[in-house]
Structures are given as structure tokens and as C-alpha cells.
């Protein structure tokens, strides 16, 4: 028997019930769209985040108190760890301890809101140095100026506002020189950052930066830091710096067993690793959910194929009478269901590609996100592969029902 004939036959029988065939594959189309879209968008999101992490430059190393979180429940260890204080910062600043460091900049995250007169807003309030933004991201105030190192030493009550924060509190009015309130303290605005959108892991427009000294002692009343951001020399190996940092802090804390570390060091590479892991887990999870709709589509296929087998009982009987083996009949019906799901897969994949293109454009234009358009070949192959598998799995039972029909009863069937 020629290989092409059964395919032609299947197409013909599907074409005679075109409306029904199209409705049947709708479920598969939706399932495949979901799967391919999730993968494509997941890949895009991962690349976006990785690009942002890479925009930090590989010369950034972050030290945080506590131990590396091993899950959401473990985060408290990091947030409430108090092991990084001025003593640790000073030790890290000594070149004999960590030679390849350019700067050590402690940071404090201030919880609470910022207000001006009756306007209240909850941005990310970050106690940092004046040079952090310029050093790492090359962002300068569009109005006013950063606070100075002297301000940091003096614990001056001064603040730089992100663009969105300024808009929320002051509208179009001028803000530089005005006093805002954070946690009950009056703080003078020295500068406004330009509209910058998402930079690295945070949105610069939604940020408020003030001297870390002020944030730590006056606003939060604590003696520790939430993180220390370290800039290495450009030619330094971040992993080597990280290991210098670890031994310095272990010496300082008399830690001999590295599993008992009360701090952890994050390099760009670590971040990339953990982002990749998280995004892979998320993608797998979402694909699993999306697959459920594909399964539902498969059940629809099975249902219609069973109807089709019953409708064509005569035909099955006749085919057997003129020489079709059980295998021939089985193959014919399996092929039909596979062609059904495969066309669903093709339509679904095309739709998913179109949709991810549209979503990318919307994200770029509306949300100012440089979301990369990703159409991984893997996703397309997976979509088509899953469609075939669905056709095969859900077509098997109806095809088996068809194949095992008794020819005489099939011919007599009314």
C-alpha cells in the first residue's frame, strides 16, 4: 500500500466534515497556543531579566546577611539578619583583606511611605551612597543634584526622588528644596532623577535614595545593613573577590565551618544561575498547567473520533470485506486524529507566534520594557510534538474501537 494514500484519504474524510473538524481542533489550538506562548514569553522574560542583570556589569558583588535563601520561607533569614555592620564594611574596605575592590557601599532598605503635604506614596526607599547610581548605572539627576559624601558623613536629611515619586507627590510643581516626610522625619529634596524606567532589578522611577547613614540610624534606628554593594576592579575575577570577601568575614566572625556562614555573597554569575533556575521551574510549571487545556482538547478529539467511528461503521465493514486488515483500519483512524491535532498544532503555533509578537510590541510600547521577541525552535517543535502525541494518545482508543469491529455486524449496522 502506498504511503501517501491513507493521508489523502484521511484529509478527504476530515474535509467532508470541515466545520466539525475545525471545532474539534479548537481545543487543541487553544492548548498549543497556551503551551507555545508560555514558553516563548518565558524565554523572553528570562532574557530580559538576564540582560538587566548583565547591565549591572560583572564587576558588582553583593554581600547580604544571613544565609543564602533556599526557599521562600527562608527569606526571613536574609531580611532580618544583622550580621553586616560598620565593622564588616570597614574590614572589607581594607585592601589587604580584599585587594580588588574599588568601592564598598552599604545599603539600607527603609520600610514606610513618603509624603508631601497630603500626598502619600510608597516607593522603594533606599539608603545608599551618592555614587551608587552614577557608578553602576550612569544616571544623573535631571534637576538638582545628588547628596554629597559629606551629607552621608553628616547623616544629612536629604533625598533624591525618582521621576514617578516626584510626579505623585508634587505633580508638575517643583520639588527641589522642598521638605518631604519619611517615617516622621522631615527630609529635604536635593534632586530628581530622570525618567529611566526599569534598570537592572528595580524601577528607577519608583525609587527614593537617601544617605545610608541617615536611613540606618535616623529612619530605621538599626546598626546593621541590609546589603553591601561592592564594586570590583574591572579586570578582577568576581569569584576571586567573592572568595576574599568570604574569608575576610569568616575571620571576623570566627567561622570555621562554611555551612555556618552568617552572610552570603552574590556575584552576577550566581544571579544568572538562580534566575535561570527560577525561570525554568516557572516555565515548566506553566507549561504543565497549559498542558491541561491540551488534554481537554485531546478528550474532544477522542469524542469526535468515537462519533466518527460509529458513523462510519458501514465503511469499516466494507473496507474489511474488500481486504483491509485490522491494522489498516487502525492506521486510518489514527492518522485522521493525528492530522486533526497536527493541524491544530500548526494553527496554534502560528497563532502563538503572532500573539507573542503582539505582546512584545505592547510590552515595549506601553510598559517601556525592552522585552526580546523569542520564538524558540524548541517551543515550536514541542508544540507540534505535543499535538502529534495528543492525536496519537487520544486517537488510539477510537482507532482500536474501529479496528476491532466485526465486519459482518459493521455491514449490517443501520
Amino acid at each position, binding site marked *: *500500500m502506498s504511503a501517501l494514500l491513507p493521508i489523502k484519504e484521511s484529509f478527504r474524510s476530515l474535509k467532508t466534515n470541515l466545520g466539525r473538524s475545525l471545532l474539534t481542533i479548537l481545543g487543541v489550538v487553544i492548548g498549543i497556543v497556551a503551551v507555545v506562548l508560555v514558553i516563548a514569553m518565558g524565554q523572553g522574560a528570562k532574557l530580559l531579566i538576564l540582560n538587566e542583570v548583565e547591565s549591572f556589569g560583572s564587576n558588582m558583588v553583593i554581600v547580604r546577611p544571613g544565609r543564602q535563601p533556599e526557599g521562600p520561607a527562608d527569606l526571613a533569614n536574609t531580611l532580618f539578619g544583622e550580621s553586616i555592620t560598620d565593622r564588616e564594611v570597614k574590614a572589607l574596605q581594607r585592601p589587604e583583606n580584599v585587594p580588588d575592590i574599588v568601592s564598598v557601599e552599604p545599603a539600607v532598605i527603609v520600610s514606610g511611605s513618603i509624603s508631601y503635604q497630603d500626598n502619600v506614596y510608597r516607593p522603594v526607599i533606599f539608603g545608599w551612597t551618592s555614587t551608587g547610581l552614577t557608578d553602576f548605572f550612569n544616571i544623573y539627576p535631571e534637576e538638582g543634584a545628588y547628596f554629597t559624601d559629606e551629607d552621608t558623613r553628616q547623616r544629612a536629611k536629604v533625598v533624591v526622588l525618582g521621576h514617578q515619586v516626584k510626579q505623585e507627590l508634587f505633580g508638575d510643581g517643583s520639588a527641589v528644596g522642598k521638605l518631604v516626610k519619611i517615617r516622621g522625619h522631615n527630609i529635604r529634596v536635593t534632586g530628581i532623577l530622570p525618567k529611566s524606567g526599569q534598570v537592572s532589578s528595580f524601577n528607577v522611577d519608583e525609587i527614593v535614595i537617601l544617605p545610608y547613614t541617615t536611613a540606618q540610624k535616623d529612619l530605621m534606628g538599626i546598626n546593621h545593613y541590609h546589603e553591601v554593594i561592592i564594586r570590583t576592579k574591572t579586570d578582577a575575577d568576581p569569584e576571586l573577590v567573592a572568595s576574599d570577601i568570604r574569608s575576610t568575614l569568616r575571620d571576623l566572625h570566627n567561622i570555621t565551618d562554611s555551612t555556618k556562614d552568617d552572610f552570603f555573597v552574590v556575584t552576577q554569575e550566581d544571579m544568572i544561575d538562580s534566575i535561570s533556575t527560577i525561570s525554568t521551574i516557572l516555565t515548566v510549571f506553566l507549561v504543565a498547567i497549559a498542558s491541561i487545556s491540551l488534554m481537554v482538547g485531546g478528550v474532544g478529539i477522542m469524542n469526535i473520533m468515537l462519533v466518527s467511528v460509529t458513523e462510519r461503521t458501514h465503511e469499516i465493514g466494507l473496507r474489511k470485506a474488500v481486504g483491509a486488515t485490522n491494522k489498516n483500519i487502525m492506521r486510518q483512524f489514527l492518522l485522521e486524529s493525528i492530522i486533526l491535532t497536527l493541524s491544530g498544532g500548526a494553527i496554534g503555533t502560528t497563532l502563538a507566534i503572532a500573539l507573542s509578537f503582539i505582546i512584545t510590541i505592547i510590552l515595549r510600547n506601553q510598559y517601556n520594557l525592552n522585552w526580546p521577541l523569542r520564538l524558540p525552535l524548541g517551543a515550536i517543535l514541542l508544540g507540534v510534538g505535543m499535538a502529534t502525541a495528543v492525536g496519537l494518545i487520544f486517537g488510539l482508543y477510537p482507532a482500536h474501537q474501529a479496528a476491532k469491529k466485526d465486519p459482518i455486524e459493521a455491514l449490517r449496522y443501520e
Partner: protein
Amino acid sequence: MKNKIPLIQTLGLTKIYGGAEETKTVALKNINLTVNDGEFISIIGPSGSGKSTLLHMIGLLDHPTSGQYLFAGQETEHLSDAKLAHLRNQLIGFIFQSFHLLPRATVLENVMLPLYYSQLPAKKHKERALSAIQEVGMTYRLAHKPSQLSGGEKQRVAIARALVNRPKVILADEPTGNLDSQTGSVVLETIDSLHKQGHTIIIITHETPTAQYASRVITILDGQISSDQAISSKHKHYSK
């Protein structure tokens, strides 16, 4: 030498439907039948007598409950589904009372159907089907669908389909049952001409005149052969 082995030979063929003692029906009882190459046999009997069951058994569509069936000298009891399908495809042609044409396929495609399950290379299918269609005089309706044909035309297409693989035996189950007498007679003439070309024909009917095309008439009653007689001169005109 060739004719020493009968084409069809049944020994004590019995078919019982239903397993349980109280529901079981004996459809065929101890049938001993021998058919030689080139015979034109008519099987007659009232409905429910078991003649269709016998035809299905001869056509390898059904298995006997007991007894032996030798087709072209070959024991058929232990043949696989694939082997039986192959025999049906190559050696047997079926003609049914209700034609059983595929409604969505054209005349040509319907006739090509058995070739599709044969070993014949695909490029020869059309040529072979066309010659079968020509034999039944249906060449002028090649691209028509069955719904566009008259009853007689449908049955002629079905006959073309039955002979397209050049089978040894053609089994017809009341081929004129759904046709008026005139059309029926055309169909019977077509079948008769196949017989003259050397095909073995076994035809089921409950209309005696149809049976009179045959060279041998077998009567079945209550699952048993009640008479088996050769007919010397065949009637040439079919009338109800």
C-alpha cells in the same frame, strides 16, 4: 490437475450464535459443500435460513463454531486477521444488496478501494479500476458520487469494485434485492457475463428467477442444505 482441488470445501460447517444454552441460535448445521472453479451457484432459501451466514463464512468474514473450511485447498481456521484480509482482497469479490459504496468517494475511487489494500503499485490502480469500470459499462460516470447514480448503476459500480482485483470467486448477497426487475436483470446479465469470463459466482437470493441464471441451485432451510441440484439449461430472461 488444476481442478482436482475444489475452490471451496466445507466439512461439517456449523455456526452457533450466543453462548448461553437458552439464548443460542443454530444458524448453520453440518454444512458439507464443495464448489469448483468456474461454477455459478445460487443459494436460495427463506430469510433466516442461514444462507447469508454461509456466504459470510465462505467469504472469510466469519468463523465457523465448528467444522472445517478449506479455501483453495487451504485450511482457514488458524489464519491470522492479516492473512484472511489478504485472501478476501485477492481472491474474493463481494457484492451486497445495499451496494455499500463509500458515499463521499467518486465511482472511480470506490472501484479503486480494494486495490488500495493490495500489493499492486499505486500507479497502476487507476488503469486497473478503469478497465473494471469499463467491463460493467460505467465509464460515463467516473467522477460521479454514489448519490448521483441510480440503483442499477450503483450495483454495477459495486460489481466493478468486486472484480477489480481479479478474484477467483464473486460472492453476491441478494444483488438485485434493492432493484426493480428490469434493472435487476441488467445487473444479473453483468454477473452472468463475469461467469462466462471464468469467475466463480455464488449468489444468494430468495427470488427463484434470479437463481435460474445459475448452473447449480442450493436450497438452505433451517441452517441445513435441503437440496443441491444442477441445472442444465439456464434461463436467459429474468422476470419477477
